[in-house]
């Protein structure tokens, strides 16, 4: 079997609570040994390909719990193969993909389709809460879970009917999976950007923070009442952080995620009318951005998820209010974490990594382990000091809000089941 040794790496692994210099021996798909300096001297010399990772970090492959892979339906924007390539380049070993494909993941057939598609990292599908994502009738969630769905969500569309949401939360208790809430009261949110001074100056219609908060409050109340598991996707406002912080204190079984763009950027970005800043939930104010960082810091926010949403050029090259919402994120997410969270000193790298690996795995009960003997060699080698500017992507789409921005921390190399992918640019 092919052997590989990664030498002198600073291994940072939340799964094993490790942060130390080790050599990692990989044989075939799996890790054969993780050795410190002293053990190495005593042990026999291993033969094989060697990567000297001095000055670099070795981290477990990341897990994205909010990816839109677009296949089936919009293969011009992304396929399961291109999406997982994009993930791999970002240092990911697994993505949890949302159900709003065309047709949506509301039946076993589509789950199987996703599972059988060609891919280069793990893909865990999310099933639709309701048939056709219409918000009116529960899909056969038992079937979906049985086929391998790790959660249910109508992401992209909120479940406006409170009664349906209550029934979904209750029904899912038997499967011990969370219901993911895309929290947005559509009656309050007919706009295209955050409602505030910037939308006022630009004359663009606003999406008020209360459109998100009102539904989060509702869903927290429903989760509390029904004692079920709720996961709230892409929270973006200070009020949302506060609601979830309080709910967690009260013992409500709620988890949540925030995206890199919501802790990195604000609605000020929209001033040039660049549609790569047209996102839903929208980029909010600096006050909200700081609150998101606070929430990550005190663990109100459990995970960082990309909400990777590829869109074709011809759609994004429209007028701001005509363009679809969403940005890609897999290839820039970890660098955003380093650039906007670690570098300014808000969180340390171990805490950041928990949001990218351990916590996502816990929320969706994913069978992911860290870098330890006998486990799959799914890891990334990162140069934490490398400064780079995102330009080209492996994603089929290039609607990134970070194009041209200076980022720090570059994934140099990703290993998935022992296979080495080196990223040149």
């Amino acid at each position, binding site marked *: 079997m092919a052997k590989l040794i990664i030498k002198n790496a600073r291994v940072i692994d939340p799964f094993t609570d490790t942060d130390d210099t080790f050599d990692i021996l990989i044989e075939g798909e799996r890790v054969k040994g993780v050795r410190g300096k002293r053990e190495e001297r005593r042990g026999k010399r291993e033969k094989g390909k060697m990567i000297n990772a001095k000055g670099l970090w070795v981290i477990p492959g990341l897990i994205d719990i909010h990816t839109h892979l677009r296949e089936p339906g919009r293969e011009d924007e992304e396929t399961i193969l291109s999406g997982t390539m994009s993930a791999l380049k970002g240092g990911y070993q697994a993505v949890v993909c949302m159900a709003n494909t065309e047709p949506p993941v509301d039946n076993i057939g589509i789950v199987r389709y996703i599972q059988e598609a060609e891919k280069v990292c793990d893909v865990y599908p999310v099933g639709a809460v309701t048939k056709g994502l219409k918000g009116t009738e529960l899909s056969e969630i038992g079937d979906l879970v049985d086929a391998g769905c790790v959660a249910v969500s109508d992401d992209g569309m909120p479940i406006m009917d409170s009664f349906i949401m209550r029934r979904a939360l209750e029904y899912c208790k038997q499967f011990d999976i969370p219901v993911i809430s895309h929290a947005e009261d559509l009656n309050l949110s007919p706009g295209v950007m955050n*409602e505030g*001074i910037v939308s006022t*100056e630009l004359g663009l219609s*606003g999406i008020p923070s209360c459109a998100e908060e009102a539904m989060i409050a509702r869903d927290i109340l429903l989760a509390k009442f029904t004692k079920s598991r709720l996961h709230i996707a892409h929270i973006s406002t200070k009020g949302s952080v506060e609601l979830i912080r309080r709910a967690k204190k009260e013992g409500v079984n709620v988890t949540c995620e925030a995206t890199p763009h919501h802790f990195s950027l604000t609605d000020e970005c929209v001033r*040039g*009318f660049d549609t790569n800043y047209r996102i839903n939930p929208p980029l909010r104010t600096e006050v909200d951005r700081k609150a998101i960082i606070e929430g990550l810091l005190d663990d109100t926010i459990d995970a960082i998820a990309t909400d990777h949403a590829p869109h074709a050029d*011809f759609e994004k090259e*429209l007028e*701001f209010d*005509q363009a679809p919402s969403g940005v890609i994120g897999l290839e820039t997410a970890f660098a955003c974490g380093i650039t906007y969270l670690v570098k300014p000193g808000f969180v340390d790298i171990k805490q950041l990594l928990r949001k990218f690996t351990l916590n996502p795995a816990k929320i969706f009960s994913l069978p992911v382990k860290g870098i330890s003997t006998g486990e799959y060699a799914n890891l990334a080698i990162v140069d934490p000091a490398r400064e780079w500017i995102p330009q080209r992507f492996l994603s089929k789409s290039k609607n990134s809000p970070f194009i041209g921005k200076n980022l720090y921390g570059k994934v140099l190399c990703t290993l998935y089941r022992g296979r080495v992918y080196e990223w040149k640019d």
Partner: protein
Amino acid sequence: MCPDSSEIEGLKRKDLLGVLELEKEEIELILNTAVSFKEILERPIKVVPYLRGKTVAFLFFEPSTRTLNSFSLAARRLSCDSVSVSASSSSVLKGETLLDTAKNLEAMKLNFVVVRHSSPGAPHILAKNLTSSVINAGDGSHEHPTQALLDLLTIKEHFAKFEGLKVLIVGDIEHSRVARSDIWGMKKLGMDVSVCGPPTLIPRDIEKMGVRVYYNLKEAIENKDIIYVLRIQKERQKRGLFPSTREYINLYSITEEVLEKYARRDVVIMHPGPVNRGIEIVPSVADGTRSLILPQVTNGVAVRMACFYLLPGGKRDKREERGEG
């Protein structure tokens, strides 16, 4: 007196997209140039050759008669050829994107493109993709810079100053590009700006633009030099912004009685047109002695002439070649 092109420095920018990005000096330059162009409009032969050989395209995605005619006349007075590019529906509905339109316009080798569009930022897309000078003739609720400039010219003519003048803008602030451009321009020239309307038509955080907000018209008009009345744009209103036209009239219509009772005696009334007579303003006020509405229209042509004249009309500045003026 006619502007002597050898003396006047043009605007440094390629495009006129909004008042927000204009420097105070640029606004003053446009207004001063417009003043000298007004003289041309009084001549028996109202044409000068400054823009001979140049071409402007009018690209109006939204219906407009007043603004289009005004621009069209301005171009003609400067001997600038014009072409109307049909754009009756939104580009999305046509199946052609605005970027496609831009590429087509670029291929036509135009000097100016005057665009009106329902989406904020649409002129900015054109400006980025065209070497011609783009003039924003209104983009959604964002900006309408030439309207603000003609308003400022009208104010300048009436008051002979800007500093310290108190203006109240009344009506649908939320959906008004005129309000936004006027607020920026008036603030830059040292005026004191307030807005008034039902709270549902006052956009969030507008105080941060440096204006005072009133909901009560009677309080608001007290001690103002100018009342700028906005058209209640029926086509833009979504349900629920106010209960009825009747109630709007009761609360916010500018009438003789309200003015007599609460306004300064020398207050002047402005309106961007077209007027909804009997709704936001009663006919006797619109047509009365306090009204500057018709001078606004005249000034529109002069200001637009000045904009054509001062903008480079393309990336390469050909002003030197225009020395014959």
